[in-house]
């Protein structure tokens, strides 16, 4: 690989992270609020009560604002693929092309068609068709999310493909293996259900504000009931799908799991760190304690990671340096195989250029035998395979703590609203007002776990981020980083202003 400036790699990473995080401010609210609107409208159609229509139209307006501001924020990420990540986008084009094409053709058109009926069709189409359209928008939005999450899942667990050394591309061999990979399914269910939780928190936040101000009380209470039930069910589902995601990490990305658990020395019957403070001086292979303090639940990590009580969970040191007893191959050993694969690729390339078929064939045979560890051939040291441990650990634990808080909050809201005295719970309502922001923190932390935890890999085990990066001027990346920061911040301010204006107006006639 070309001798690439690491500051360029890091600025390219930072730019992608910035734009992805801004994108994720808008997307999960769309995913969840679309379903909440469908539920509100279903109640309206079922009961014929015009107050539910007013409630539906209110939340739908806020949904529309978020959708409009957020639409096309994802396009920027595609621009970045072509400019900042050209090696990567060339190699994965065949894999990403299919899911993103399906997203565009199927999901987006479904969404866009029924979106117009949802907004323009009140009093113009039948109640039944309007309700059907609202549900189609919700399903279409979530189906859009499926395809991009399938693409991301493939980066974490590349499957269903073969590398073609003639074209330097991964070629899809099995579309269904890519679509239904266990990592893709768990990522899709976990990410979308986190959106359902976030949207429920949004409804609770706005409704709590109304209750504190003594405005639109009936609408607030009705909205809280629906959102709390949806949010509670989604929270439980998030926990189950999160467990599945961690299990998949243990099977396919054990270094990621070790990082977010702060586990350096692998062990049988490994405990789960519920709370802790990482020793930031700790390095792989040294004798320092990984934690300044920790509170562990004995044996739970082995059970959750492997679904087998007492099983061995490899730590960072086992994965970097190897553990013969537990049959864990170390990074150093993988690097030797990977370096051979890189050399064989170079030999193949030269032999093809020289039109020497015999040498090319021999090189290809050797490459094929070693290609599983190709990515390790680009690492400079074994320790390079370790992602940032503090960032992984804290983001994971913040996400889980908040994820534990939310269902408790939904239960409290449901209890007091059904009891009829939610407006008097002045200790709970301010927490409700804060909860939407906390939901965003949890969601963003989840993506930090996923993407920082997979470092140094762009494609797990096959391509490090530094190989994926285009060797362009770092000044270019810095300039566009700050341009995006400016533009997206303006969009966010616009969204907040327009939303607050609509919230201050409130629902019609209530």
């Amino acid at each position, binding site marked *: *690989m*070309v*001798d690439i*400036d*690491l500051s360029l790699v890091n600025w390219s990473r930072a730019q992608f992270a910035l734009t992805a995080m801004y994108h994720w401010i808008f997307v999960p609210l769309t995913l969840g609020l679309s379903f909440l609107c469908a539920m509100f409208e279903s109640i309206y159609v079922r009961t014929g009560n015009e107050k539910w229509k007013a409630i539906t139209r209110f939340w739908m*307006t806020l949904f*529309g*604002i978020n959708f*409009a*501001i957020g*639409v*096309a924020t994802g*396009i*920027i990420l595609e*621009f*970045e693929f*072509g*400019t900042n990540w*050209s*090696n990567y*986008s*060339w*190699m994965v084009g065949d894999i990403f092309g299919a899911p993103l094409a399906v997203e565009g053709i199927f999901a987006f058109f479904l969404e866009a068609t029924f979106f*117009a009926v949802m*907004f*323009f*069709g009140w009093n*113009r189409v039948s109640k039944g068709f309007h309700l059907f359209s609202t549900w189609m928008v919700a399903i279409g939005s979530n189906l859009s999310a499926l395809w991009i999450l399938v693409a991301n899942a493939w980066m974490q667990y590349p499957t269903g493909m073969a590398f073609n*050394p*003639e*074209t*330097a*591309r991964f070629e899809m061999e099995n579309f269904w293996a890519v679509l239904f990979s266990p990592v893709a399914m768990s990522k899709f269910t976990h990410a979308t259900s986190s959106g359902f939780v976030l949207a429920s928190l949004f409804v609770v936040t706005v409704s709590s504000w109304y209750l504190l101000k003594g405005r639109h009380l009936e609408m607030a209470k009705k909205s809280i009931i629906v959102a709390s039930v949806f949010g509670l069910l989604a929270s439980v589902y998030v926990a189950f799908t999160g467990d599945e995601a961690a299990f998949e990490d243990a099977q396919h990305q054990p270094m990621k799991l070790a990082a977010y658990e702060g586990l350096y020395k692998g062990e049988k019957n490994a405990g789960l760190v519920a709370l802790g403070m990482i020793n930031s001086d700790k390095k792989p292979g040294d004798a320092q304690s990984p934690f300044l303090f920790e509170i562990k639940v004995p044996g739970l990590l082995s059970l959750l990671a492997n679904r087998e009580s007492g099983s061995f969970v490899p730590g960072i040191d086992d994965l970097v340096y190897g553990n013969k007893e537990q049959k864990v191959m170390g990074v150093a050993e993988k690097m030797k195989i990977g*370096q051979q694969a*890189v*050399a064989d*690729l*170079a030999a193949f*390339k030269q032999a093809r250029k020289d039109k020497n078929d015999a040498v090319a064939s021999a090189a290809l045979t050797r490459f094929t035998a070693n290609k599983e560890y190709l990515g390790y*051939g*680009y*690492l*400079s*040291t074994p320790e*390079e395979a370790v992602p940032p441990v503090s960032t992984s650990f804290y983001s994971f634990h913040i996400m889980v703590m908040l994820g534990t808080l939310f269902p408790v909050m939904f239960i409290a809201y449901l209890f007091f609203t059904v009891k009829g005295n939610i407006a008097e719970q002045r200790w709970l309502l301010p927490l409700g007002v804060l909860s939407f922001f906390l939901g965003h923190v949890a969601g963003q932390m989840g993506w930090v776990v996923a993407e920082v935890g997979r470092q140094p890999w762009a494609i797990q085990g096959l391509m490090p981020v530094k*190989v994926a990066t*285009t060797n*362009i001027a770092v000044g*270019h990346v810095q*300039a*566009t980083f700050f*341009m995006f920061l400016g*533009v997206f911040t303006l*969009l966010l301010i*616009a969204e907040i202003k*327009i939303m607050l204006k*609509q919230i201050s107006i409130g629902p019609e006639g209530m």
Partner: protein
Amino acid sequence: MAGPFTSVYTFYRNGFKTMTVGRTLWKIILIKLLVMFAVFKLFFFPNYLKTNFQTDEQRADHVLEQLSRPAVPNH
């Protein structure tokens, strides 16, 4: 009796005409798309491989060149 295309056209036309909040949102959408495609894409985000190489064979060669060099120490 209006045909289906006329009905759809009228539906959209009346929908856009009666927008309130939607007018502001559409302005934002159009400005955003203009900035993204006419400014960002055009001036700041050329497709590196399409711009610097003419054929897929050249692009593949370039990427293969990147992939076939051994690791160098980080700096």
